[in-house]
């Protein structure tokens, strides 16, 4: 693992992040948006563990943060799904473009 160095991890992380953002920006389905968010979070996780591995000072902290993000992601998914369900109940759709009720 030490041979390949930090860079490939960061590149993979950046790629995942770009995929996630694209997914959030492009998809109209709320569930797909949620999946994009998961991708973004996990790209961040990858970043954290990679830095933890290659920076001795942060060996423990990076992993702890990653665990915390995983917990947060679970909570976020629960809340987001609840919101989506409610939105579906009210609007009979999960299209995020329809969610313009609070527009100024």
């Amino acid at each position, binding site marked *: 693992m030490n041979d390949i160095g930090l860079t490939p991890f960061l590149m993979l992380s950046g790629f995942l992040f770009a995929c996630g*953002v694209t997914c959030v*920006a492009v998809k109209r389905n709320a569930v797909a948006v949620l999946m994009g968010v998961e991708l973004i979070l996990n790209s961040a996780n990858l970043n954290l563990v990679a830095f933890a591995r290659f920076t001795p000072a942060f060996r423990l902290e990076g992993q702890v943060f990653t665990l915390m993000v995983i917990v947060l992601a679970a909570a976020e998914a629960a809340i987001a799904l609840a919101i989506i369900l409610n939105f579906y109940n009210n609007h009979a759709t999960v299209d995020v473009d329809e969610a313009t009720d*609070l*527009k100024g």
Partner: protein
Amino acid sequence: MFDWFFATPGRLYVVGTLLPLVAFVGMLVAGAIRGLCRPFRQEGKFLATVYWALGGDQPVKGGAYLATACMALAAALGLAGLVLFLQDTTTGKDHAARWSERVDWIRLGAFDSTPPHIWEERYYDWQKQGTHHEPPPAPPTAVALELGYRIDHLTAVVFAMVTVVGTLIFVFSLGYMREETQAQVEDHQVDQHYDETNAAAHGSPSSPHGQHFRRRGRFGRFFLYLSLFCFSMLNLVIADNLFQVFVSWELVGVCSFFLIGFYYERKSAAWAANKAFIVNRVGDAGFLLGIVIAWTYLGTLNFEEMNRRVRSPVEDSHGPLAFANQLVRVQVADADTTKSESITKFRLPPKDDPTAGTHLALFPLAWETPDHYHGLGYKRSQEQEFLAPVNATINDFGAMPYWLFVVMGLGIFLGCIGKSAQVPLHTWLPDAMEGPTPVSALIHAATMVAAGVYLVGRSYALLAPEVLLVIAYIGAVTLFMSATIALVQTDIKRVLAYSTCSQLGFMMLALGMGGWVAGLLHLITHAFFKALLFLCSGSVIHSCHHEQDLRPMGGLGRKMPITAFTMLIGVLAICGAPLLSGWYSKDMILSVALAYVWLHPEHLLLFALPAVTAAMTAYYMFRLWFLAFTGQPRDAHVCEQAHESPTVMTLPLVVLALFSVAVAWGWPVWEVEASALAHVLEKAEPASVSVAFYAVKVKEHEVHRLAGGIALGAAVIGTAVAFHFFYRRSPTLAELTAPGPAWYTFLVRKWYCDEVYDATVVQPTIQLARISAAVDKRDVEEAASVETAAIAPPRYDWSTLDGLLSAVGQLMSSLGARLRAVQTGLLRFYVTALALTATVLLAMLAVLTR
């Protein structure tokens, strides 16, 4: 109780001054309570009782009687005070303690109210103990606005005059204003259209179309204003400092405004009230300027202290001073000798050229070493130089630029010009005749307009010789101009109004030429006979159903003999008929004028104008009397119902007539210089008068018979001419109303003064206001569109201030409207924007940090 008064009898005057204020406040409070109780007048037991007890729906009558009683009591106190004052034998500090008091009102600076004489005592104690002790604290240096009174002979006499004339006029008003006691008064001079346009605004009851305006009687309100006026006037008279005078000055001004506009539904009355107020403001601006200069340089506004500050003391430790009671002019000493920048050295100018001094020396009130001091003078034992600190207090030597001292005098006199209706601010007084006649008598003839003359007399020591000359010339021009206008006026009150201007001019003339006693004696005598004349005209107007035009009148003497006879006395008095009060004062004025002109022939006009005017005075006064009271009625409609006025009105006439005859008498009666009143006033004469006008005074005694002869001859000529034209030939109505030649029109139009002021001052001001309004504000229609700017596209207006300010708001508003579009509510759009922004920022970071 009485001990309290007799210890300081000056407090009689304070009580007398406050009595009308008590009446005023009482009436005001009662009126307010009645107004508050009015909604409960039907139900509500207690409040309804209060309402009906305070007069109910009827105009208040009780308040008027209360005010009259207060005024009568004030007159009693004034007369008692006068008697006590004349019998008082104390002098010096005892006299001052008995007849003057002062309290701080607003104090600036160190809080130490120790009077100078206490400080002197401390100083002596210190010297006795030996000088190795700590020296006593320095004398007080703080300045304060004060309230105080100081009674001297002038104050005592004028106070008695104001209260007596005031009381008589209050009594007269009880009769004259009788119709104001009705619940509904019909104003014949206001048409219905006023009601229609204002009914909504005022909620006044509307009456059938085509009739005159009806309103509630205002009996109480009339006496309310009169009481406030009397308080202010009395306060002005007893005041011992310029600021208190100024406060009262403004108060009498505002009372005059209220009373001129008493019939405010009449457009002319409203205009006249505004005119009087605004014209007086011009004068007051000057007055205020004078006060500010006095305050800045003299450090005090107390009359006595100001006098001691600008006039040299009579003597110093080495004997009498040559400059005693004079203004001393000094010049800045050579700059090289000045050691410190905060101290300037002043020196007397060369002895042969005293006017070379550019500054006026100011003398300390308390000397640095109270037991020994040096005055200014040319003798060796006196100082020729003195040091003046930059921030000189009232206890230091000081100096002020002489031209500023002149400006101060002119400023104070400008206030007097406004109040006493002198040229060029005389135009308000004739218009002030729109007020009820008792008001014209009390305010615009007898008392308030005399306040200007009184103030000139009071602040005489502060007036430089140049200012006095200006005063004399203004007086001369005024007395001549007003008299010429009075020759042709046909309104009975306007003749009297111009005659008032003219007589005030006589007073100013006398004061300006050193005839201090003559001018103020004329103030007193004039107050009585002019009040009498006005009340007589009021009686005529009252009986002729408010007809004021002299031309339709005639033959009223048979129908109202008391009025006719008392008015004849007034006319004779104002003409200067021998043994009547006006004779004494007018003779004195003319002899002063003659003496002055004798000594200064270049000022010939100052005698020629009053001499000619004496003839004109007799002419126009007798013209008025003949037209009103003799011959046949020229208009039967006006005169047929004329009748003598009730006793409540004729009684004051008789009393005033007695005063007009006898107020200036002395023994022997036929000797002008024996006038007792003049001798009383002489005791109050500032010492500076005898110093500055010694030669005039000496000459006056030599020429007064000649002057008296000239005055009498002029009066006889004027009377004879009037007798010829208006009694022997008794003109018809047609002759009187026919248009005259050009000079006649010129006089009827009052020398076109109003027209000139309208063209030069009023119209430019209105134009300037219009231009300002145009620059400031867009018109209403456009302004309305601003409010709908959210809907319609805004219209910017860059040409006006208002539009410019609105444009800032409008711009922000439209910017906001555009930015609204960015907030789409689309989640994906936000995320894209966020991601792109982050990318761009990171790219920038990457590029910039490379």
